[in-house]
């Protein structure tokens, strides 16, 4: 077994103190599978965080550029407690000569910080992160005008600092903002969101414990949908659905999600607008200086 000699390794047999609470865990779990709705939302149709089901958490502390001064473009967003930062580099030459292509290429790296989840994560990219990176890439490829920078590569690095549900959705929004701030030509912004399906109920933008867990709840009509939506071109750039549901329900979920994206679009655009204005003003100042 290969040991990672480039990092300090802890003892193999250490375990999280949360395991000491075994009993409670089981109860919770039992309850979850028994009647999820009760846990997630009280009788009065209000979720733990005081949201109504069709309500998303507000996008806050959106910081575009500046957060990573070294990068060409960068963005930081908080959707509820889900915090992530994205840095964009390039267009720069492709490292590997072998994968040459006339179109530009996107390289996406999606990483959870070791402390970002309930369980401690490893340092190397695990399988899940690899797949998420792939999804991110496919979604953004649909939005970025790759033909504008042939033979070059744009690197998109997403780092999840805290994961409280629907990280991919947040990542999509964050990444497209970062790309925009790096002034990479795009057809449209990609706005991500996810929907949690419960029997006869849809929750928009689920938190970690609202999210569909393959381990926990796998009875009928339980699923999670994450989409990346391009509002102005009205196109779907990413679509990931997990869990069991009927086609009709999927339609419903899709509708809910797209509506939300359309709602958010102006907000995001506003953020970008401010940035652009600021940079322009700065430039004019610089002009004055010289």
């Amino acid at each position, binding site marked *: 077994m290969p*040991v990672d*000699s*480039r*990092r*300090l390794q802890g003892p193999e047999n250490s375990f999280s103190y949360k395991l000491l609470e075994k009993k409670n865990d089981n109860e919770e779990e039992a309850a979850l599978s028994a009647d999820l709705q009760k846990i997630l939302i009280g009788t009065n149709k209000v979720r733990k965080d005081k949201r109504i089901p069709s309500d998303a958490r507000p996008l806050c502390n959106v910081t575009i550029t500046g957060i990573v001064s070294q990068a060409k473009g960068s963005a930081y967003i908080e959707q509820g407690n889900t915090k992530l930062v994205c840095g964009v580099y390039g267009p720069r030459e492709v490292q590997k000569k072998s994968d040459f292509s006339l179109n530009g290429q996107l390289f996406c790296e999606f990483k959870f910080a070791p402390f970002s989840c309930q369980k401690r994560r490893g340092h190397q990219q695990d399988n899940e992160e690899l797949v998420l990176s792939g999804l991110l890439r496919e979604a953004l490829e649909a939005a970025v005008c790759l033909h504008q920078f042939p033979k070059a590569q744009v690197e998109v690095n997403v780092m999840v600092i805290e994961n409280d549900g629907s990280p991919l959705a947040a990542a999509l929004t964050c990444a497209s903002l970062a790309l925009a701030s790096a002034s990479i030509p795009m057809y449209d912004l990609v706005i991500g969101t996810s929907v949690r399906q419960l029997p006869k109920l849809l929750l928009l933008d689920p938190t970690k414990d609202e999210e569909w867990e393959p381990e926990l709840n796998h009875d009928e009509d339980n699923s999670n949908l994450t989409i990346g939506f391009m509002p102005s071109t009205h196109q779907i750039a990413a679509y990931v659905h997990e869990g069991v549901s009927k086609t009709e329900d999927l339609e419903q979920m899709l509708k809910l999600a797209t509506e939300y994206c359309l709602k958010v679009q102006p907000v995001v655009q506003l953020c970008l607008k401010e940035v652009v204005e600021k940079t322009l003003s700065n430039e004019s100042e610089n002009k004055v200086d010289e």
Partner: protein
Amino acid sequence: METEEKSIRALKCEQSVLSRADGSVMFSQGNTVVMASVYGPLEAKIQKELSDRMYIELNYKPKIGMPGVAERGKEKLIKTTCNHIILTNLHPRTAVCITVQEMQDGGTLLAASINAVCLALLDSGLPLQCLVAAVTCLVDKKDRIVLDPCINTVKEGYKAMCTFAFDSQKYNMILSHCEGQVPYQLFQKAMELCQKASHVIFDFYRQAVLRKFSKELL
């Protein structure tokens, strides 16, 4: 004699011990034995190539197990020191490959390795702007400064262990690395002590080189 204060332990070295390396030395300081080898200038790997100077690749090999993060730390220390003493800008777009192998731990491995590397560089004949001599000293529990401590003294525990390296021109500090905690005055005393001690090592370098060439005449 080894625990005796204010003295440096016996120094010994054998230059060009390795038949293949361009420069190599087996260096002992008291019971600490270190072997260092230098290859170069060689052609540098493309990604490592530096347009204006020589790239220094340094590997520090522990005696037991794979090199880990701790070794990387040592490597950085030694490498940056080499960067200062080698006239790297004379050989742009090339690489020099230095390997340090610890052979016997007599307490002061870091200092010994730096001295060994310096001798190996001398042996290899790479152009240097100055020599470097490293000395370790230790502040024990009773605030006594022990110069060049041997392994037992180190094992007994200490307040701080500092390693300094000085250049041969003005005896200024090139490298400093310490573990533990000492008040500044003590720290300063330790530094001065080591600086004095470094002269002995430079003296030894001189004799080593002398011996090497005289032998070649014999």
